[in-house]
C-alpha cells in the first residue's frame, strides 16, 4: 500500500484529503488505480502528472517501482524554458 501525497489542485478530487492510500506496485498501477477509484483524476493524468519517489522525480516511466514505505508525491509536470 502506497501513501500518495497530492498537491492542492488534486485534493478536491479526494474530498480535500492531503494524501490517499493506493494499492500499487509501480507508477502505471498507481495511475490506473487512481483513475478507477477517482474518475476525476483522468483529465489530470491525460495532461500528465509527475511522480516524486523518495525525492527523485519521474515523468514518463510507468514501470518505476514504488518501494514499500517510500515518500511519494504527485506533482504537476514541470515546463521548461
Amino acid at each position, binding site marked *: 500500500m502506497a501513501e500518495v501525497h497530492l498537491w492542492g*489542485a488534486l485534493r*478536491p478530487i479526494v474530498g480535500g484529503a492531503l494524501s490517499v492510500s493506493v494499492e500499487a506496485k509501480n507508477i502505471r498501477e498507481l495511475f490506473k488505480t487512481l483513475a478507477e477509484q477517482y474518475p476525476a483524476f483522468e483529465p489530470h493524468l491525460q495532461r500528465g502528472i509527475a511522480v*516524486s519517489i523518495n*525525492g527523485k522525480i519521474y515523468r514518463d*516511466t510507468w514501470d518505476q517501482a514504488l518501494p514499500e514505505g517510500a515518500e511519494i508525491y504527485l506533482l504537476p509536470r*514541470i515546463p*521548461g*524554458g
Partner: protein
Amino acid sequence: MPLDTNFTNQKFKQVGTRPLRPDGVDKVTGRAKYGADYNAPGQLIALVLRSPHAHARIKKIDTSKAEKLAGVKAIITSADLPDLTAGDRGMRDMLENCMARKKVLYDGHAVAAVAAIDQTTARKALKLIQVDYEILPHVTDVDEALKPSAPVIHNDIFTEGVEPKPTKPSNNNKRASFGHGDIEQGFREADIIVEHTYKTEQTHQGYIEPHACVANVSPDGQGELWVCTQGHFVYRNQCAALLGMDISKLRVTASEIGGGFGGKTHIWTEPLALALSRKANRPVKLTMSREEVFRCSGPTSSTSIDMKIGAKRDGTITAAHGVLRYHGGAFPATWAEFGAMTAFACYDLKNVKGESIEVIVNRPKTAAYRAPSAPMAAFAVESAIDELAKKIGMDAVELRIKNAAKQGTQSSYGPVYGPIGIGATLEAAKNHAHMKAPLGKNQGRGMACGFWFNFGGQTCCDINVTPDGTVTVAVGTIDVGGSRASIGLMAAEELGISYEDVRVVIADTSSLGHNDMTDGSRGTFSTGLATIAAARNAIKVLCARAAKMWDIPEDAVVWEDGHAKPAGTNAGNFPPLSIKEIAAAAGNTGGPIAGHNELVADGAGVSFATHICDIEVDPETGRSTVKRYTVIQDAGKAIHPSYVEGQYQGGAAQGIGWALNEEYIYGKDGRLQNAGFLDYRIPVCSDLPFIDTMILEIPNPNHPYGVRGVGETSIVPPLAAVANAMSNAVGIRLTHIPMSPPRVLKAISARKH
C-alpha cells in the same frame, strides 16, 4: 542493459576542459544557417493578417479581392484548419492561437494568411482582405481580470481545483496550493512579519532571431519543414496532429537557433506555412517581423503576488505564505502553479503555503521563459526576506544561511531533498571578495537566491564510428548554448578518443527517434546520459570486433584509453588495437560499428544559485546602473565550464533587463504600445559590467558524472538581487518590476515629500 545512472565520482581526462565549440567558426563567420537563411526553389512568401483588436468577434472574413490579385497563390483562414483535436483542450488552444476561429483574443491574433510570389504582393493581398469585427470589452491586467466586472474571455472556463465547482465561467481557470505545516500558528510564533503585494510586468525572452520557417508539402502528403525551434520533434508531432498528417510523413530539420529561452517551445506560424504550402502546392517561407514576435509569440506572464513572511528575532522563519496570480495570456495555463512550487524552495520551513491563481487576459498566449514562473516568485520572497533581515537587524546572508534548505529538508513543494547546493552557494557568497568590496556614493549592494527544478525526458542518440575511426554523434536536442561541445566531450571521455575526433550533429526528425525539446535545462543532462550509454554500447561492439580480429572470446577484451586490450594474460598477448585499426577492419568483421541508446532521463538534480549585485542610482533621474554582478551556482558537474559560465552570465543579463527596464506596455485600447527593441529596452553589452561567475559542483546522485542542468536557474535571483541592491542604495523598497527610471524617480520623490 539500462545505463546505471548512479554517480561514480570518476576521474576525468576531457570532461571539465574548455575546447572550442564546433559551431563557433560558422557562427562568427556568417556561415551558420538560421531560420530565415534557407530558401527552396520556387518558394512563395507568406504574411499573416493580424487582429488590431484585443477582443472581438469575427463576423465575416472576405478574401475574394485578395484571391484575385495577380501573384497570390493561396490564402487561408480558420476554415482551412479544421479542428482535428478530438477534445484535447491543449491542442485546441494551440490551433486557435495559431489562427483565430470565432473570436480574436488579443492584439496581433492571426485571422488569415497569404502566400504570394513575393513580399510586396503578399502585403498588398493582406490589405485586400476584409474582416468584419464586432468589438468586445477587453481586459489586459492580471488583477483587473479577476474582478467581477471584468469581461469573461472564455464562456467555457470554470475554475478548476476548488470545491464546490463553480457554476459560472470566469477568467480564473485554476487554483492550487503547495506547502505543509500550520501557517497561522507559524505567524503567531513570529516576532516580526513582513507583508507586501509585489507586481512584475510582462517581459519577452528577447531572442535576437525572429521565428522563421520554410514549409514544403507535396501533393502525395509528404512534407518538409525547415524551422528555428527548441524542439523539432515536438513541432513535427504537433503540426502533423493539427494538419491531419501522419507524423512519419513530415520531416522537420532544425536550423541554428538565435536564442529561444522557452519562446521557441511552442508552434506559432509553422502550421500556417504548412497549410499554405499544401494549398498552393509550392514551398512557403514565413518569417515573423520583430513587431510580430512581440505582439504574437509567447512572452512570460505579468504577475501580482501577495507575500507574507514571519520570523523570530533570532532569524528563524516561522511561517511563509504567498498568493500568486499569473496570467497565461488569452488561454488557460498553469504558470502560477509553478511560481507557487518554486517560491519558497530555497528554505527549510516548518510552516509554508504557496497558493496559485491562474488568470486569463487579452494578451498573447504565454510561453515558458527560462525557469518559467520562478523569477517573479523569487522577487517577492527574496525582497520580503531582505526586509525581514533589516527589521531584525541581521545580515541578509546570515539570515538566509540560518534558514537554508539542506539534504533531508522537506521542500515547500513536497518531496524531501537529497544533496543540494543552496547552503554552499550562500557560504560562497558570504566569503566572496565582492561582498567585502567598498561601495561609492549612491551605490548599494543586494543579494538573492533562486531555485529551479530541471528535468530530463525522452532522449535518444546514435554514435557511428566512421571507417577512419573518427566518430559522429547524432542527437535530437537543439543546441542552444554549446551542448554540441559538451556532448562531444562526454563521447570522447567514454570512448577514450580525442574531442577533435568527434563530430556532434543535430539529426532531423526522420533520422532519430523522438526527442523532447531542449527545455528544462535538460540538454546536457539527458542527451549526455543517452550519449554515455550509446558510447558504452559502441564500445561493446568495438571489443567484439577486436575479439574477432584476435580470434578470442568477446569477454576476453577490455576497452581502455581508446584501445581494445586483452583482458589478461590468459586472453593472449596481443598489442592494443586502436579505434582506427578496428574501424578500418569493420567491413571484414561485421560491417559498420555503431552504438545507440534511447531513454527517459529521470532524476535531474535540482539547482540553486545565489547572486550579488552592486547598483548605482542617479537620484536626479532615477536611472540606475549595475556596477558589479556575481553569479554563484551549483552545476553538479560542469562538463564544459566556459559554456556553463555563459549560461550563468546570460541568465543574469536577462534578469537584470527584466528588473530594470523590460516591460510590455498596453494602451487602454488593449494594443501593445512598444513592439520593438527601441521601445522595449533589453540590456546590451555597454549597459552591463562583466558578470563574474563561480561554479560549484555538488554532484547530482542520479547522473554518473554528477551533472545537473544549468541553463535556467541563473535568471531566478536577479529581479530580487537588483531590487535589494536598489533598496540599499537609495533607501526605497520597490515592489513593482521593472524598476525603470520613472518608477524609481517617483518613489524617490514620494519619499522626499
